[in-house]
């Protein structure tokens, strides 16, 4: 039977990309939440918080993601016994999400911080002058404007995240790159077509995603 019409193979392919989708979704949510908190820390007037934010960014931005994901498995799970689910796949999935989120958060933080720098200082002064607290100024005036300025860079970060999600394959999750390896091993006569299908799937989804973020960035841009 043809490799592309075998229902078992289709199943391996679909399962692989569903894992990627789930890793990307959960990783993006986690990275966005942690990244915003880190950015808030890095612009806060409290030196300890600023130091923590800087340490996080420098640590995770300069460590290979493969090592971080390995650590999540061998460190957090195997050594420290952090089990996140009884199902082995689900456990590896959540360990992978942690690795992706803490790593991507460092980039999200820096993107948002650069967005904060695009907001004129007068905006914060005006907010403080009507009696807003640091937290109110940040959440109601600075971050909404900074967020609109970083839609495009955040898009790039999330696209990178979707591709980085394949690294979770190294700790045994049957995501797309593992699925591809499995199919190639079983179908030595169709290596290049299989490769093209997997690479093409990423490209077909991610290219329009990039354009969508660009369109959104234009739409949301703050006019000054």
């Amino acid at each position, binding site marked *: 039977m043809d490799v592309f019409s075998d229902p078992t193979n289709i199943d391996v392919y679909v399962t692989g990309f569903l894992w990627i989708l789930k890793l990307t979704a959960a990783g993006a949510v986690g990275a966005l939440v942690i990244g915003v908190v880190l950015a808030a820390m890095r612009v806060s007037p409290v030196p300890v918080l600023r130091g923590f934010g800087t340490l996080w960014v420098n640590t995770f931005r300069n460590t290979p993601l493969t090592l971080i994901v390995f650590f999540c498995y061998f460190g957090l799970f195997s050594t420290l016994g952090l089990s996140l689910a009884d199902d082995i796949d689900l456990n590896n999935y959540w360990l992978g999400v942690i690795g992706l989120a803490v790593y991507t958060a460092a980039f999200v933080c820096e993107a948002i911080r650069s967005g904060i720098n695009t907001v004129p200082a*007068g*905006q914060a*002064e*005006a907010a403080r*002058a*009507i*009696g807003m607290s640091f937290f109110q100024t940040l959440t109601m005036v600075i971050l909404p*404007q900074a967020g609109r300025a970083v839609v495009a860079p955040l898009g790039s970060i999330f696209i990178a995240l979707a591709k980085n999600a394949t690294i979770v394959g190294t700790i045994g999750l049957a995501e797309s790159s593992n699925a591809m390896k499995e199919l190639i091993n079983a179908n030595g006569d169709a290596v290049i077509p299989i490769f093209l299908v997997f690479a093409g799937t990423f490209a077909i989804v991610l290219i329009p995603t990039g354009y969508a973020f660009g369109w959104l960035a234009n739409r949301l841009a703050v006019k000054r």
Partner: protein
Amino acid sequence: MPTSEPLIVLDGVNKYFGPLHVLQDVSLSVARGEVVVVIGPSGSGKSTLCRAINRLEPINSGTITFDGQTLPAEGKALARLRSEVGMVFQSFNLFAHKTILQNVMLGPVKVRGEKPAAVRERAMALLDRVGIASQAEKYPAQLSGGQQQRVAIARALAMQPKALLFDEPTSALDPEMVGEVLDVMTSLAREGMTMVVVTHEMGFARHAANRVVFMADGQLVESAPPAEFFENPKSERARDFLSKILTH
């Protein structure tokens, strides 16, 4: 007119920017309902003085008292004080991502926790007063400079402040828009609002101020009613300044 204890008191205020001594032992008191116009050459410390009153610039020594209370250093107490002192900036600083109406409503609703419906009514009345009511749903970037500055005044007034600080409110405006902003300021002055106005508009100083304060090189050089100051400046520094700006 001025009665009872003064609203704003600066006593022996010193401020440094690095080695630069921008406010040198400045003392000034502003009575309730008084309109004080601060003039002086660029770099004389007028803007810093204005910004020190609501602690956008912290000072190095001396005391600033507002309504009988020493200026709090930070936190909730400082935020509360700032909510009672309106400020109008040279560059307007309207919140760029909010509509005109939202700009005016944000403070009362979020800082004071007032009911949006009541605030909306007050905000529209204020926008009507400054002549911008028909633009309430637009964004700041869609308005002219003069219109933006009038909205900024309405935003400050929405907090029902005890005093208003103006930091060169017309310096960033095209000449034909200066008048519309000064008109609003003049009518506020007539109504008895306590105002500290840093400006280069000598006409405004002449007809709307109760007192003109002249600053040079970080020092408060002279303080007198406008007629007296413009006709008969006492210090050499003030005479020199006036001769330069009034001859053309």
